[in-house]
């Protein structure tokens, strides 16, 4: 196998795979860097090329991604992309030097030997997120990436010099110039991969980097125990926004250009969450209106994501209200009212009254 042409190159496992292996975490994508080869040699050895912006190849057997060692530099003014230089003369160290954090800049030979020019293993053992070089400044999104790793990697903290660099970049308002889509994407990754969104915000706060993107969340400290009860990015985002005034949550959603499901869930929680949490004491008409806004009477379990966030954030069980909502869905339908000749607004009013009635009777203790 070692003699197969595809394995004859000088190649190294790099990035997240090496980091997660060292941390004993489940394997993520295994990415490789190939040193000293050109695209023709890769193709001749049976690799298939997939990269458009830079040369990436799939291994003929494992289908794992193999990239030629490369350097990246922001391209000329007016362009927003990077000039990528890949060639047989680019060294492994140069390829590793363009990475953001030392724990992400380690490489491993196929025989398991570690190549670690930036002391990533030392930082990994110490639980430190440390920038590799000053080129960290090139992309302010890296501030958010550091916060993401702090959320994803349990027990990791930001090295003091990296935090100082992040503060410097924040003071220079570099973050303000990022496109909303990139900021959203980093937030979405964080929330999808880790329940510790509180750490994400804490690191941004330490770096004075909550403004401008997350400024509404300054001073908001979400209990990690609450986040731990919630699955998925939309629910975790709604939990972060739980204590915000509705107008602030709406501004945040608009600025971050979050998808409609995030936005609907978040706004439902901040507008109606307090009432849903104390539903036994709520005015039945207002309660019916809130459930209708969520869409609970249109579609089975439509209320479930909202109830999950409200339950976690308010520390109450909404199981009885969920049961009652399900009963109303079964019991109240438009057919009998139509048979009575009702239509249009009158039909809507009759349905509302029927639901309110069912929310009113037999109030739970």
């Amino acid at each position, binding site marked *: 196998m070692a003699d197969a042409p595809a394995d004859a190159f000088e190649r190294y496992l790099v990035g997240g795979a090496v980091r997660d292996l060292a941390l004993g975490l489940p394997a993520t994508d295994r990415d490789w860097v190939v040193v000293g080869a050109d695209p023709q040699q890769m193709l001749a050895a049976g690799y298939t090329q997939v990269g458009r912006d830079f040369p990436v190849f799939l291994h003929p057997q494992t289908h794992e991604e193999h990239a030629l060692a490369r350097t990246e530099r*922001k391209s000329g*003014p007016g362009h927003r992309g990077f000039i990528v230089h890949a060639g047989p003369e680019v060294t492994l160290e140069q390829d590793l*030097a363009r990475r953001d954090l030392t724990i992400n800049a380690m490489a491993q030979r196929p025989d398991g030997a570690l190549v670690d020019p930036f002391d990533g293993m030392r930082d990994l053992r110490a639980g430190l997120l440390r920038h590799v*070089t000053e080129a960290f400044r*090139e992309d302010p999104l890296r501030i958010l990436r550091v916060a993401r790793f702090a959320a994803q990697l349990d027990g990791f903290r930001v090295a003091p010099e990296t935090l100082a660099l992040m503060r*410097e970049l924040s003071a220079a308002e570099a973050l303000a110039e*990022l496109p909303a889509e990139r900021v959203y994407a980093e937030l979405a990754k964080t929330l999808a991969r880790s329940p510790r969104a509180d750490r994400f915000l804490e690191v941004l706060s330490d770096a004075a980097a909550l403004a401008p993107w997350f400024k509404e969340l300054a001073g908001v400290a979400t209990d990690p125990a609450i986040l731990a009860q919630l699955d998925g990015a939309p629910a975790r985002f709604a939990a972060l926004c739980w204590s915000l005034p509705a107008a602030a949550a709406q501004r945040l959603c608009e600025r971050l250009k979050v998808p409609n499901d995030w936005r609907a869930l978040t706004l439902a929680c901040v507008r109606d969450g307090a009432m849903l949490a104390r539903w036994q004491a709520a005015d039945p008409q207002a309660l019916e209106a809130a459930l209708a806004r969520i869409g609970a009477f249109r579609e089975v379990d439509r209320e479930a994501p909202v109830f999950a966030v409200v339950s976690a954030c308010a520390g109450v069980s909404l199981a009885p209200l969920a049961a009652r909502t399900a009963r109303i869905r079964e019991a109240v339908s438009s057919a009998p009212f139509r048979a009575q000749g009702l239509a249009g607004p009158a039909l809507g009013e009759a349905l509302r009254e029927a639901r309110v009635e069912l929310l009113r009777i037999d109030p739970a203790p």
Partner: protein
Amino acid sequence: MATWAIGDLQGCAEEFFTLLDRIRFGAGDRLWLLGDLVNRGPGSLATLRRVYELRDQVQVVLGNHDLHLLAIAFGGHRAGRSDTFDALLAAPDRDNLLHWLRAQPLMVSDRALGYAMVHAGVLPQWSLADAQARADEVAAALTGVHYQDYLRDLYGNEPATWDPALSGMARLRFITNAFTRMRLLLPDGSLEFAHKGALADAPAGLVPWYAVLPPATLAPIRLLFGHWAALNGDSGRDDVIALDTGCVWGRALTALCLESGDRVSVAASNDRG
């Protein structure tokens, strides 16, 4: 603990290292560098590496040659025949050094110490607080996401006159020219760039910026500047101190101790001049 200010290094690595030894620069000391760390001299890479190693003890302001280097590295400009950046631009650690350099300011002031520093000068119309705010505008452009646009459009002598209503690149260019290139002013206070030589040879009607800087602008602060080697360290004023003693032109590199007022000089290596 001492704070030493040193004028234009311009890649004079050998003299710089000798001077650091001569002043017994130690772990508790601080260094103020007046800009133009690089270019013309033979050791730009070694100079910048040493400054970077000392970065926790160093305050730097950017000079025109530093900006020129950044404009070549990131702004799409080409090196000229007299530029000596080749080794630096080819170095494996170039991005580390250049991105650090890009984050340095155009003006530093320290009230407790009683000093401020700029590379070329402070426009006489500005108060010290105005000047710092203007310098910070350029620093923001240099550290922002669109720094390459700034470095592309940096060059030019226009506008030559300050107007608070200036905006965009014209505003940034004027501020940059005032802090990093200014020497002489026309009677109307506008910048004049043709004359670089000795003051005595300056065309009639032109005055050096520091001659018309109101003393009240600075007091009680004293202002350090480099850039103008032909002055050879003499501004004729106690509160505006010229520190470029022309090392790269074969004269000397000078360090001034800001606490004691001591001056220590190292003569330029004789393989140049």
